[in-house]
């Protein structure tokens, strides 16, 4: 196994991304509780190291597809926090102009192709950019995220085979946060997700998803393989979600206290903080500055959300089709 050796600068970058995600998600959490944000929201606090560690290897030409629990992926991929917050507020001018909402945040300009409310559906989609990169002879890769629950969906399983058969530069990141809704992964699947991947011909790794450096290194290996034309890889990241399955789902009685405590003591930000404290002189000041900056960024995003105009109710009627040669009216009839 060839390990990437991470630089302090890279670690700082990871910390910054993770802090942004944490601050963003916690703010969304309280805004929702205050009744200020609408929507069906799935937060990823606790899982920041996965998004940050993977995305650190990707450029705008590398495409990702995400899930319902997508805010962290979007932020790490470079989607504007303000645009996202505007979208969460259901206002005009955000990532999706109010048509998508939390579960559909995407921004192709930074390589974020799609999120979505159908568990497992983003995985087949990622096969497309991987195929395109391969056909074009580009070194770009496609990364797809899915959960431990999603790993049981036929669409995900089929895609693993397709990626192997077509030798696609595709990377499967399974965020195993122990639960799919209130169902533990140990019930949903007879084997750990990464063990299954080998049976599809995908090399796989299991990493501690709380350790951003471990994720970074595993993702680095997978991305290098893909860029070198050696096909897909599967990485299972063991992690934990601090909030409920969705905002409003407060009945978290099914979380065992010892697991909860264990993961909270292994908070990904704390782990990285400690590593940086050991490795980088003056880290405490840098850290404080990052935290301040990220709070500013999120404050500004919230302001942007609050101030963005409410959409014209008629705006939802347009944009069902892209083609301009055939116009389609409200009732699905063509007009010309």
């Amino acid at each position, binding site marked *: 196994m060839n390990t990437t050796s991470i630089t302090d600068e890279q670690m700082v970058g990871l910390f910054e991304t993770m802090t942004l995600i944490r601050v963003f998600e916690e703010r969304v959490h309280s805004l929702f509780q205050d009744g200020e944000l*609408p*929507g*069906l929201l799935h937060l990823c606090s606790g899982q920041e190291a996965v998004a940050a560690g993977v995305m650190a290897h990707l450029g705008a030409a590398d495409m990702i597809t995400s899930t319902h629990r997508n805010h962290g992926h979007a932020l790490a991929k470079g989607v504007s926090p303000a645009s996202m917050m505007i*979208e969460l507020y*259901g*206002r005009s001018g955000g990532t*999706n102009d*109010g*048509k*998508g*909402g*939390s*579960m*559909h945040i995407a921004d192709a300009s930074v390589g974020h192709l799609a999120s*979505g*409310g*159908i*568990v*497992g*559906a983003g995985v087949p989609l990622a096969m497309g950019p991987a195929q395109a990169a391969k056909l074009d002879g580009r070194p770009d890769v496609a990364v797809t995220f899915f959960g431990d*629950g*999603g790993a*049981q*969906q*036929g*669409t995900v399983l089929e895609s693993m085979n397709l990626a192997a058969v077509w030798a696609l530069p595709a990377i499967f990141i399974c965020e195993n946060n122990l639960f*799919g*809704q*209130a*169902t*533990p992964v*140990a*019930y*949903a*699947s007879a084997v750990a997700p990464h063990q299954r991947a080998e049976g599809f011909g995908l090399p796989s790794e299991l990493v501690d998803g709380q350790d951003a450096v471990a994720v970074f290194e595993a993702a680095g290996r997978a991305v290098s393989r893909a860029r070198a034309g050696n096909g897909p890889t599967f990485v299972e990241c063991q992690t934990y979600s601090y909030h409920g399955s969705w905002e409003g789902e407060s*009945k978290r*009685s*099914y979380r*065992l206290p010892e697991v909860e405590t264990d993961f909270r003591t292994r908070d990904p930000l704390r782990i990285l903080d400690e590593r940086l404290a050991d490795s980088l002189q003056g880290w405490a000041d840098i850290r404080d500055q990052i935290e301040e900056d990220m709070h500013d960024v999120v404050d500004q995003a919230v302001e942007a959300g609050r101030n963005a105009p*409410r*959409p*014209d*109710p*008629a*705006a*939802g*009627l347009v944009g*069902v089709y892209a083609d301009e040669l055939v116009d*389609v*009216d*409200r*009732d*699905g009839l063509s007009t010309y």
Partner: protein
Amino acid sequence: MRKISFSDAINEALREEMRRDPRVIVTGEDVAGGATIRGFERRDAWGGVFGVTRELVSEFGRDRVIDTPISESAYLGAAIGAATQGYRTVTEIQFLDFIGVCLDQVVNQAAKLHYARGSKGSGIPLVIRAMVGAGVRAGGTQSQSFYSAMAHFPGIKVVAPANPADAKGLMLASIRDQDPVFFMEHKGLYETSGEVPEGEHLVPLGRASVVREGEDVTVVAIARMVQVAERAADLLKAEGIGVEIVDPRTIAPLDYATISASVAKTGRLVVVDEDTPRCSVASDIVGLVASRDFDALRSAPSMVTAPHTPVPAAPELEDAYTPDADQVMAAIRKVVA
């Protein structure tokens, strides 16, 4: 009579039927929740995402209230197979929006196995519960009502209750039915409450209900749109317009006779539905009335439906998407003009 919520009415129907018939089982993602977790042996973590199946596992145990992986094709197939062995599975697909991952099991397996067996078939008793309806700002893949597309397929029945009493009565009838029944639960109705008879209360499939009588116009409305139609009817009373509201309750097979009788009386028709317009139950009903009761019609029938768009997430957009009483009133005024 006591009043209970739509959600409790379904829960009660499931509980009563599971008591009556030991071969009724419930499956789906988190219909109990918490499977294999210490302390949850006879206790649910959720009882369904909105609690409709709550506390069933406490009474019936995990052999009859069975959590599943997120593998809809597999557990739907299991329900169909079990139906051939005397079991009656009430299985949940959470949101109808998700059915695309497993539709083959519905339309080519559940719907056709009985027919394809010829005279040797003995039915595929099975209920597929699924939520429909916009209004929760969840965006395009958790808000749809595309039961029209389901009703298109021969071999399945599609039920969409509009009030707690019908929810209970139709659920009892659906479980006892020998055929696969799609049971559509509008999430905007879960909290509504109404009088619900205790014990055996069967509402037969394939029978519409005349929710209110009126002389001037027939409004056919489905699921949550029945409330919207009632609001419109209340408001139009002041204008002297008598609205008859027909709730089909079962979309497939459709009780056309009741609609026909109403149109014969009023001579006018408005269909109100939250599904999108093309090849929909709304155009279906208008098409049926036009072809079968043309002479009864005194004016052009009208449809009030969602637009031909996905369901947008933002509140203003979603509200504009969903048919409301104003639109219904405008349509009624036009047909009675």
